[in-house]
């Protein structure tokens, strides 16, 4: 792994030193009130068993005897959590007499820290602007020096770091840093004031706290009370106490076991992350209590130990740890009982608190914070929305106090393009509504539907998409968030539905459930059979049905029927593109064991591939043939298709023409693909084989223009019309004429189009058709394959009327 050049490495090492003070600040009251031996041993790594113990202690605070010797002052009783203002100083003191570089922190606290930064930085900038001089080119995005240097310089200082990683690093944004300065002018009291003034969530359309509350009464109650009147502080305690309840003793034993062996600090850090993931996952899937933790394997430290060194952390390549739900956005606060989801949750902003703290070690703290974010994969991908909110709150609170600072902050920010792009600073606050909307619209245009919806969720009316996304987010199962996890169930009852390519998550109210699709299909098939539906109408309907099937993940017989009917209709019309789509779907459907007309479409595949065998389909044809002979009882269609393959391989044109005539069902439509070539090759063969002339009437028979007498009539063999088509057997474009005269005329026209030399024999006056003959010798080497006239709009079959009706 490569790391940035020298100067930035130097700064990185500086981070490690900066760690302890910063993280310690995130400790919750519950945490502090705990009494356990490991807490102050100062080996430099936060460990889970301690944390678990701490949580436990908070839970059973009434029974548990207070730790006599090492408990920090002012943190003896969890009851103090109820009195935020009085506890605040204790909380401030605690970090500085402990040496914890890695302390679990919740987003609530992160947001609190945003605010806190804002003050500290503001104060700092106010007091001595530019006092801290950082060497040029160091990794200093959050440093004051970065304000003066243009964005590209900051980006160039650490080119190795991909933007996604550097995002969190820049979260304590410059704008936030400058704006809230006035608050910090009076540093002691206003912290609690901020706690009460910032209520950004109140204004926004709210997430379904009630529904989540059903599952997590504790948190919901906390949230409710928090919104009502209680200080933010209380809720932090409540929220962080919630997970401890979910920790069964075996799990705690497991965590202890995990920490029992790991040796180096680096490994412990890694283990921390891994354990957090495992536990979160278990909590999300509800296996916390059911899993046999005694035998559950310990997390493997596959990640390189060197990740401790800051820089773009390397994720394990395989066995990727589950991404947090926050990938698509925040998890509703009430739903998250685990560390990770808390860390990802944006609801922390409701409980923002800014613990009062002396203003020193700010720069180090900010750096260490960004480091921790990049190290901890679970908290890393802060979503846009989340960051926006956090930044917006800070900015709003600042704006309340003094508006002109916002302007100043914005000005200072302006040249820093890179930072604006990555750090989600608080600019949005000064944007007017129109601009916001415009930006959102633009977002929606360029982002995927899901992300667009997430962005829209921030401000616009919660429409269906947003609700659905939230739903998706709230129950993010272990693995990477995928839409496949969620299968919708349609409620639409309409039989007809036009196809519209989805631009957003599907809406169940316009998706038809299976029974409705069934009747829609039979209706469409009936109208195709009696010819009342044009292909365009059918295409539109079929595509709508296919879409409904896809979004509902229906892979059963009905799906096969829809695809089969559509494939037949497409073949009848000559729409090969749609046919191929259907054929592909049918292949996978039939392979997975869905019953349908497997053999018919296997035959279609054979015919199609043998028609294209010269163009790279030879190996595919081989595979299909193998599948065909594997059939226990090959159907008529398959046998026919196999003999077509043979005839085409052996260049037995005559057999090909005969087989065309006897093709069952849609066979002719597929043979039509190869037919012009076959006929032209046959003509060349005749010209070389016959001398001196070949009468047109005979040629018409040899070239398949006139039906031979021995041709079996298939029409009577099966009268049943397959769904999707209008005839039992497709007539085909190149069907031989039963009438010899007509066949000869067609042959003559075709020969002329091939630029064949036709001579008229003088003797026969009475029989004009017999008199004409092909001059074989003259034709050799002069024949030209007749070109099909290209149509501008690409569809030869498209009649103007159809086009007009379709356009309407």
């Amino acid at each position, binding site marked *: 792994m490569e790391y940035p050049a020298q100067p930035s490495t130097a700064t990185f090492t500086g981070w490690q030193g900066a760690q302890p003070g910063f993280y310690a600040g995130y400790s919750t009251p519950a945490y502090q009130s705990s009494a356990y*031996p*490991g807490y102050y*041993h*100062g*080996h430099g790594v936060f460990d889970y*068993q*301690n944390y678990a113990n701490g949580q436990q202690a908070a839970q059973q605070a009434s029974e548990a005897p207070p730790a006599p010797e090492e408990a920090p002052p002012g943190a003896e009783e969890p009851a103090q959590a109820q009195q935020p203002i009085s506890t605040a100083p204790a909380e401030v003191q605690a970090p500085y007499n402990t040496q914890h570089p890695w302390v679990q922190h919740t987003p609530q606290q992160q947001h609190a820290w945003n605010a806190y930064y804002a003050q500290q930085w503001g104060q700092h900038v106010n007091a001595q602007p530019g006092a801290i001089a950082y060497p040029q080119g160091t990794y200093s995005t959050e440093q004051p020096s970065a304000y003066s240097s243009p964005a590209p310089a900051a980006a160039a200082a650490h080119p190795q770091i991909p933007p996604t990683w550097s995002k969190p690093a820049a979260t304590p944004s410059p704008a936030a840093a400058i704006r809230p300065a006035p608050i910090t002018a009076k540093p002691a009291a206003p912290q609690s004031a901020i706690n009460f003034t910032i209520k950004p969530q109140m204004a926004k359309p709210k997430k379904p706290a009630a529904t989540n509350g059903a599952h997590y009464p504790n948190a919901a109650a906390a949230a409710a009370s928090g919104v009502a009147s209680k200080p933010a502080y209380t809720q932090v305690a409540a929220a962080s106490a919630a997970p401890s309840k979910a920790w069964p003793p075996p799990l705690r034993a497991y965590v*202890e*076991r995990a920490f*029992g*062996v790991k*040796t*180096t600090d680096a490994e412990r850090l890694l283990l921390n992350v891994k354990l957090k993931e495992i536990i979160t996952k278990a909590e999300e899937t509800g296996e916390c209590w059911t899993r046999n933790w005694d035998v559950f*394997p*310990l997390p*493997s*430290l*596959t*990640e390189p*130990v*060197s990740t401790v060194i800051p820089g773009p952390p390397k994720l394990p*390549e*395989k*066995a990727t740890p589950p991404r947090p739900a926050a990938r698509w956005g925040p998890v509703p606060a009430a739903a998250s009982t685990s560390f990770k989801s808390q860390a990802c949750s944006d609801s922390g902003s409701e409980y923002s608190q800014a613990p009062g703290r002396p203003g020193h070690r700010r720069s180090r703290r900010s750096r260490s914070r960004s480091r921790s974010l990049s190290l901890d994969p679970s908290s890393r991908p802060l979503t846009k929305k989340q960051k926006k909110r956090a930044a917006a709150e800070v900015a709003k609170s600042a704006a309340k106090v003094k508006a002109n600072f916002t302007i100043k902050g914005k000005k200072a920010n302006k040249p820093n393009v890179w930072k604006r792009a990555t750090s989600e600073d608080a600019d949005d606050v000064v944007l007017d509504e129109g601009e916001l909307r415009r930006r959102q619209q633009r977002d929606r245009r360029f982002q995927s539907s899901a992300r667009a919806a997430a962005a829209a969720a921030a401000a616009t009316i919660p429409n269906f998409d947003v609700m659905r996304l939230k739903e998706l987010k709230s129950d993010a199962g272990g693995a990477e968030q995928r839409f496949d996890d969620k299968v919708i169930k349609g409620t639409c009852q309409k039989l007809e539905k036009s196809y519209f390519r989805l631009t957003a998550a599907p809406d169940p109210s316009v998706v038809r459930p299976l029974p409705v699709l069934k009747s829609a299909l039979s209706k469409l098939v009936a109208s195709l059979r009696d010819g009342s539906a044009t292909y365009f109408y059918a295409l539109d309907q079929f595509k709508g049905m296919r879409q409904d099937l896809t979004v509902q993940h229906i892979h059963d017989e009905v799906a096969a029927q829809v695809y089969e009917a559509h494939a037949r209709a497409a073949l009848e019309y000559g729409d090969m593109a749609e046919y191929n789509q259907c054929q592909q779907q049918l292949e996978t459907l039939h392979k*997975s064991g869905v019953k349908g007309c497997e053999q018919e479409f296997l035959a279609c595949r054979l015919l199609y591939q043998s028609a294209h065998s010269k163009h*790279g389909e*030879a*190996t*595919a*044809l*081989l*595979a299909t*043939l*193998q599948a*065909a*002979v594997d059939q226990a009882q090959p159907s008529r269609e398959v046998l026919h298709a196999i003999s077509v*393959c*043979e005839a085409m*391989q*052996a*260049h*037995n*044109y*005559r057999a090909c023409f005969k087989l065309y005539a006897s093709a069952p069902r849609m066979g002719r439509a597929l043979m039509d693909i190869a037919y012009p070539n076959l006929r032209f090759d*046959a003509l*060349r*063969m*005749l010209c*070389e*084989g*016959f*001398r*001196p002339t*070949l*009468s047109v009437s*005979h040629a018409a*028979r*040899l070239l398949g223009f006139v039906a*031979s007498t*021995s041709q079996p009539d298939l029409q009577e063999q099966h009268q049943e019309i397959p769904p999707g088509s209008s005839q039992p057997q497709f007539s085909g474009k190149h069907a031989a004429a039963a009438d010899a005269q007509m066949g000869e005329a067609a042959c003559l026209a075709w020969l002329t189009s091939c630029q064949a030399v036709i001579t008229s024999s003088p003797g026969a006056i009475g029989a004009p058709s017999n008199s004409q003959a092909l001059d074989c010798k003259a034709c050799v080497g002069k024949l030209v394959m007749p070109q099909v006239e290209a149509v501008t709009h690409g569809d030869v079959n498209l009649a103007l009327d159809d086009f007009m009706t379709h356009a309407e």
Partner: protein
Amino acid sequence: MKCSRPSRTKQRFGNFGHRPAYSCAKLFRTISYPRFHIFGLTKLDIHSAKQVGPRHGSLGDFQGLLNAIRSFNGAKVARLLSLDNEAQRLAVRQGSSPNGTLPESALRYIHTRTCGLVHDCKEHWAVVLRSHYLCLAALLSNNHDQAFLHMADYISDMNSIFREENGAWMVPVVTQTAEALRLLANKADEQLLSQRQHQCRKEAAGSWLQKFYSTAKTLKGNQNKSMALLPVVNTMFKLYFKLNTLRNCKPCIQAVEHPNFSFTSFPQSERVTYKYFAGRLAIFQDQLAKAEADLEYAFNHCPADAWHNKRLCLYFLVPVRLLAGSLPSEAHLAAFNLQIYIPFVQAMKSGSTQQLAAALKQHQVELIRKGVYLQLVKLQPIVMRRLLKRSWVINREGNEKGHLLPLGQLQKAIRWQQMDMDEDDVECAVANLIHKKYVKGYISHKNQVLVLSKADPFPAVSAQQI
């Protein structure tokens, strides 16, 4: 016996020279249990921690493996990582639990020891070794699917090692792993099939092999990395032929047949394997000349005692040769147990379209499975030419117009063979022969006669381009 003794001695006394290994263990002992850590731990924890000693019985010659890795001894690493290594299997069988996992302590031990190596890719090695031992344990408990998954776990890490090492010493390890992955995928699929699951591990294996392939192709750091290319390509061929996804083979062929690729520097076994598959592929793509050359190469370079492999080469070579007009002797076919082709040869000799059709019908399924059916169908015109020639020879006897052959004669011959062909069919068949230049002459439709050229009316089939 003579060989084994010095090596054993070396192994025994070689340890003195392995200073780093010793210091590794020492490091492990001193650093891994910092004093503070004992606080808050139960006795049991400490006990289990102590179990992670420097020696772990269930891992076999783990130390040897580490030494080989450190000394870049690719052959030895490959030998010790081989799933067939009996000593390793025995050790893991004794150390693993019946459900096919290793004790946590062993895994921890692997990780710590490997990370203690002074090696650029030690983290990758840690993953590789850990997953390898898990794979072996799963394999020994007959859970092939799990074993495959464990192996797939470490392929990308092994590929990273292969890519980032400047030397080409990983070549034997990579080639062996590729082959093992394929075999394991086969077994895993069998197991899944028996459990009625529809996943296909072979497909996954194919995409993993692609990684090795692209690394071996880019030759980053060392030209000799290309020595892994042909073995990996061969493994991919085997996989794709089994999967019947032959279009994936095309880029491999292009890479190997690139003029800069030194094909001759590979061992004969790899060359023969490659040529065999390339020849088969050429048949499917109708490149019969290339197919003939490749299969001939494979057949000729196959060791004489590899009867089965020689037979496989012939299985595909015979149809190509038949199309080129050269007929093998029946004794030759029988010697390689290729009686399936005897009726085809007889039909070609006698011009019996009936026999050909019967043979095609009889062996249709097998020939289609092997992929030569469509080639054998192309024998029809050649058999027809033979029939035509025979009727011409008979008709020529005592006939002053020897160059003329009434089409009725031919049709009579065809009827004799109980083949259903009307006049038009016969005309077309003959015209086709003329078109393919198997016959020189023309048809006079008015007179229903085939007019043959006086000079060389039946050019040899081998003279024609297939």
